[in-house]
């Protein structure tokens, strides 16, 4: 699309190039993001022009994630996401029109991901290929084939993905941290699912899941980058406009995790050379007023060489690195610290330092310079994100999954407004032992492990 052709439609209702009247309702605009709603089925649209390059990102976020699963079908959201590439009546491998192949041929950077609160599908493409992406996403919103013959090989693909994760101490620790900290809320279940559920979930159960959650009124479409608004909306209407809204109400998650009433601990022992430790405190949901202060706290604890835990652990040669995450999710989540322990150091020594450092913030607070550095780092991250349409789409997808798009738009100013005293207050509020889960990954010796001699013939087993 030529920049000269850029003409923004005035707020109000606009019609598509077909004859149906006023298919879109303009909702609101903030920070350059314009929200529209497809009146025929409730599909929400967020548009943000960003003409860094002749590239556009189209993404669909479904408001369904592992949070919506239960025992027996954990991992269903993720397995379904894989099956969504297996085809629709229009896009099929056997017809030479496999979804991935069509996208690959136009040079798309595309994929799909599943997380606790959402599933997203995205394509970053040359602007003139926008309609191809829209057509594919519309086709699989209600037309996915979901055949058992596809599920069977895909299940083993996903199982190998699960197995790769089991090779990673970090992934093992974070999954068990959530499983231990959450006993009732579905954040207990890892997004990839438990192995036996991955293996056992039926195609019929996946179809039921699809029919429950994959509807326009449970989705948000994002168009970010180089596009012309009225033309983009018309394309959306043409391909999504006739898809009906769900006839049933989209089920809500009712389970609330009760307060944690005492420290919890878990230990994993596996063959390896490096121990890991994680400390996770129960916190709040993303749209809670304390979220910004927790994000700043995470930055000043683990955001760079000058951060408190880097200085206390890596600079002191106690840990190999440190990763601090203030998880931002739709329901109350965790504030986590992960660290691989330097061989020869006791994990307990690292745990003690982490405990002392978080308590020091609670006890003494932080300096204004430290708080300002954290604010600036987060602000800079937001500005860097705006360099590329796919990064904006990724950030916006997370925001609408855990809160709403205005949360994304307001984030820089909310961060800017947090006084340093608030950082100390949230440390005092959440860093208490009753809400703490400590996890330790302990390496054990390999026994007979070792390399065999090279074998020129046969396969050396």
């Amino acid at each position, binding site marked *: 699309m030529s920049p000269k052709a850029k003409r923004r439609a005035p707020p109000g209702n606009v019609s598509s190039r077909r004859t149906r009247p006023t298919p879109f309702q303009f909702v609101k605009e903030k920070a350059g993001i314009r929200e529209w709603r497809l009146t025929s089925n409730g599909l929400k649209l967020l548009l943000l022009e960003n003409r860094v390059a002749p*590239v556009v990102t189209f993404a669909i976020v479904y408001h369904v994630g592992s949070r919506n699963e239960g025992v027996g079908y954990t991992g269903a959201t993720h397995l379904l996401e894989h099956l969504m590439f297996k085809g629709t009546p229009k896009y099929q491998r056997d017809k030479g029109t496999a979804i991935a192949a069509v996208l690959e041929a136009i040079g798309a950077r595309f994929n799909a991901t599943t997380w606790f609160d959402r599933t997203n599908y995205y394509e970053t493409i040359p602007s003139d290929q926008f309609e191809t992406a829209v057509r594919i996403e519309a086709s699989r919103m209600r037309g996915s084939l979901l055949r058992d013959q596809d599920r069977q090989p895909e299940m083993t693909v996903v199982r190998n993905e699960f*197995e790769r994760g089991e090779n990673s101490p970090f992934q093992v620790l974070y999954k068990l941290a959530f499983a231990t900290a959450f006993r009732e809320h579905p954040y207990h279940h890892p997004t990839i699912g438990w192995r036996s559920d991955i293996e056992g979930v039926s195609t019929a159960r996946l179809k039921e899941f699809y029919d429950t959650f994959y509807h326009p009124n449970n989705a948000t479409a994002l168009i970010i980058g180089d596009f012309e608004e009225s033309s983009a909306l018309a394309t959306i209407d043409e391909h999504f406009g006739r898809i009906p809204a769900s006839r049933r109400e989209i089920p809500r998650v009712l389970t609330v995790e009760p307060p944690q009433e005492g420290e919890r601990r878990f230990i994993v022992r596996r063959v390896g050379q490096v121990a890991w430790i994680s400390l996770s405190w129960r916190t709040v949901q993303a749209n809670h007023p304390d979220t910004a202060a927790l994000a700043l706290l995470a930055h000043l604890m683990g955001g760079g060489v000058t951060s408190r835990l880097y200085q206390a652990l890596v600079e002191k040669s106690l840990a190999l690195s440190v990763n601090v995450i203030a998880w931002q999710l739709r329901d109350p989540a965790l504030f986590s610290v992960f660290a*691989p322990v330097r061989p020869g150091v006791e994990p307990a020594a690292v745990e003690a330092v982490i405990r002392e450092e978080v308590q020091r913030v609670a006890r003494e607070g932080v300096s204004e310079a430290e708080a300002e550095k954290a604010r600036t780092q987060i602000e800079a991250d937001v500005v860097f994100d705006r360099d590329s349409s796919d990064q904006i789409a990724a950030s916006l997808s997370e925001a609408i999954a855990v809160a709403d798009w205005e949360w994304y738009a307001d984030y820089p100013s909310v961060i800017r407004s947090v006084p340093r005293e608030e950082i100390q207050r949230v440390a005092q509020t959440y860093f208490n032992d009753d809400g703490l889960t400590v996890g330790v990954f302990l390496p054990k010796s390999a026994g007979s492990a070792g390399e065999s001699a090279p074998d020129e013939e046969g396969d050396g087993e």
Partner: protein
Amino acid sequence: MKPSPRPTRLGPRKGEGRPSYAEAIVSRKLPSGTELYVLENHINPTMALSGSLFAGGLFAPAERRILASVTAGELSKGTQSHTKLEIAEELESRGSSISFSSDASDPVGVDLGGAALSRHSDHLLDRLVEILTTPVFPAAELEKEKKRLIGAIQQQQDQTSVRSYEAAMRQIYPASHPFHRLRGEALIAIVDSLQPSDLDTFYRERYGAASLRLVIVGDVVAARVLDRLEKALSGWRQGPRPKWPALPVPPPAPGRESIEMPEKASADVVLASPSDLTRPERAYLPCTLANSALGQSSLTSRLGVRVRDREGLTYGIHSGFHSTHIAGPFTVTLSVRPENRAAALESTLDEIARFLKTGLKDKEFADEKSSRIGKFKVDLGSNSGLASAIDAAIYYGLGVSYLDEFPARVSAVTKEEADAEFRQRVDPGRFTIVAAGSFEGRT
């Protein structure tokens, strides 16, 4: 690029609305040999930096190539004017970042990277030059880094992907070759032995203005950036010119190896053979177009469709040439459930053989070409993407016009050429095959 004492900005290309990249990029070559490139892009208030210097592991003694990556990593640990903590404090408080790295995947170069809000661009450039030209390699910092690095190597040795790849490289490359990989314990012993004087000597021998290339893209004024950098770099020693000896490609070493690693849920398999393909040469595009069809993507390539999509034997399978200024290996890598190793390997080898026999299909080849052109366009969609692409074009001597010529260059490749170049370099009978994982009692 022609040497130019002043910035040269060319006008828009006739008949088109926007200037070509070659026209829009402002460059300057300094008497020392340093080349500077700036592309103004004022849409966002950010700048991205990418650059290179020819001081990679190839230039370190063969038995201690890791000296190059440790030296690059330690550059920012202290200068004649600032401590590590002061440098980090200044950068982090502005939301800026600078990185210097060299790893074994490119034996020739050191990568320079950076990002800043445009209002802090002067500070970023000043610190970059300071770090590059006046590092002091404090002993205490090196001791800390050695401890961290040794732990990190131990961590890597727990990974099936690392163990299988390193073992394959040991089999196909002699110890003198930069793509050879040492065993973990040997690498740890070398790291342990490093002294600040080793880093200082390597720095003095290899770092200098002659091989420095810097690319800046973003919300900056090109002339100001060029003037600032030229002034800041004016006193730096010239250092060696970028050149290196031709390395003979070793003969293939077909064979199989199995590495038992207990309690690993997933195993990794590597198929590898030496290749003569370097990044700058003409055969690179035909070969990589053919490889895209064979194994670039786990979702759409022939290997992906067969081994992952149809047979469900792997989560990820990729093939590729490790081509830089130095020819590296051709590899196929896949992760598998240990029980599925034999089946996955059989399918992989069969699919490669089938691909070599039948060659590319017309539509497949046309799709690969359109895909490559489209992806190139998409990759240029950010300041950092633009900086990386310009840097790569310069680093490999292709010139900035490569960004404009890329679609035509891809279009000009014929199917016959791609098939022939690929067949010349890939032969399943020559593969060294290494698997790492928990196989005992499961296969």
